[in-house]
């Protein structure tokens, strides 16, 4: 949910823009990150993990944990917490990691 009236910062007067998440048109505020814009629409899951196919979303918020990968305008594995959302951007969940990993050691 967008926090339109912040107790300290007051009203949010940023411009509203629109982007697509999994083909659905959503609202965002200019200057928001992709992760924040997705979460403002009540969605927490950004993708699934590679090996166990478990749900993943924003965790550290500062681009260090790499849990919030999404696909942006065709480019895979973009960090949604550290990339700004843009008008008309096409964002997809990170669901298509190759399932080639074994539980075993490799490099």
């Amino acid at each position, binding site marked *: 949910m967008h926090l339109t009236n912040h107790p300290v910062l007051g009203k949010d007067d940023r411009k509203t823009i629109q982007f697509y998440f999994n083909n659905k048109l959503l609202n965002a505020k200019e200057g928001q990150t992709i992760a924040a814009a997705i979460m403002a629409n009540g969605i927490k899951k950004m993708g699934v993990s*590679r090996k166990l196919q478990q749900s993943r979303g924003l965790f550290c918020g500062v681009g260090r944990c790499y849990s919030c990968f999404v696909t942006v305008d065709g*480019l*895979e*594995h973009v960090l949604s917490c550290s990339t700004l959302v843009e008008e008309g951007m096409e964002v997809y969940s990170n669901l298509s*990691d*190759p399932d*080639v*990993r*074994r539980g*075993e*050691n*490799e*490099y």
Partner: protein
Amino acid sequence: MKKSYDVIVVGSGVVGSSITYHLSEERNKEILSIDKDFPLSGTSGSTQAWVWVHNKTPAWYGELNMYSAELYSFLERKIGDVEYKRTGGIAPFFSEADREKALRLAEKQAEVGIKVEVLSRDEVLEKEPSLSRSIAGATYSKIDGNVNPFRLIELYIRAARKNGAKFSFYNPVMDITKENGLFKVTTQDGDYFSNQLVLAGGPWSKSLGKLLGIDVPIKQVRGQIVVTEPLRPFLSHTIGGVRQADNGEVLIGYSKEEVGYDLRSTLDIVQDTARMAIDFVPALEKVNVVRCFSGIRVMPEDGFPILGGIPGIEKGYIAAMHSGITLSPLVGTLMTELLSGGETSIDLERYSLNRFDSLQSIG
């Protein structure tokens, strides 16, 4: 832990653990392998792990590699699945001038039975469609492949342990002397004694040699490798400089630097490697690089393995080489034959430490 052994193998990397395993197969010797760290913490754990034969020259050296590669499937039946895959090897070239060299290579290797084909651009692209259209051609051989070095060393050690061999890790060797005809190996954890001794210290062979008063003419050569995020399987061959691992990661590396035991990755090399990656496989431009690592490769001064008895030191042996992953099955076998007093299946004279003019006692 027991103090006295028939054989002590110093070093538990791919060479040391293979020798320990092959010695243990006969179950007639008590064997101890000592490592200053944990296996895979050095050279054997920082490799692209090719089992690579086809353009190793001269032909007699290619032949050594070929025999060893041939042993892999046999080895897997004994120690288990080391994820050895004979993917075939492709070494691309970018100019027509190189085609002449390629044809000469194929001719030479044929003399010892290594089949090398010289492919046209279209033939290469048919085998490996992701390669750049700007290549001119490639040499190709079915014999090349790769292995999972982590599984390989783990299984050498497991199998050796099962046969009764002992291992001591995180235990640096500080001194080696001879007392009453026995080797006394002084380690951080105390003294161990043995009748026979094998130095398999990889990049540390020089300093181990010094303990025995001999010069081991090897250099330490750093290779930096760039690793991508896991990608869908799209490269099916082992390509000169580039390969895709089982888990989807692509490993790219070509660099060689003599900088001592310095494991840093430098952007000079990393960037150049990234450029090479894109030159070879243009689709790699858009993928994420997750990490780079450096390995210190062992490079005998003339490039060829040092294998056999240590001149002047009775019952002392050495095995130090580049390409330890490819050569380990054969080297383990040959060293076992040698230590057991038998004749070796391949004459090791050519690989003796004796061949270096510079060899001199520094003791």
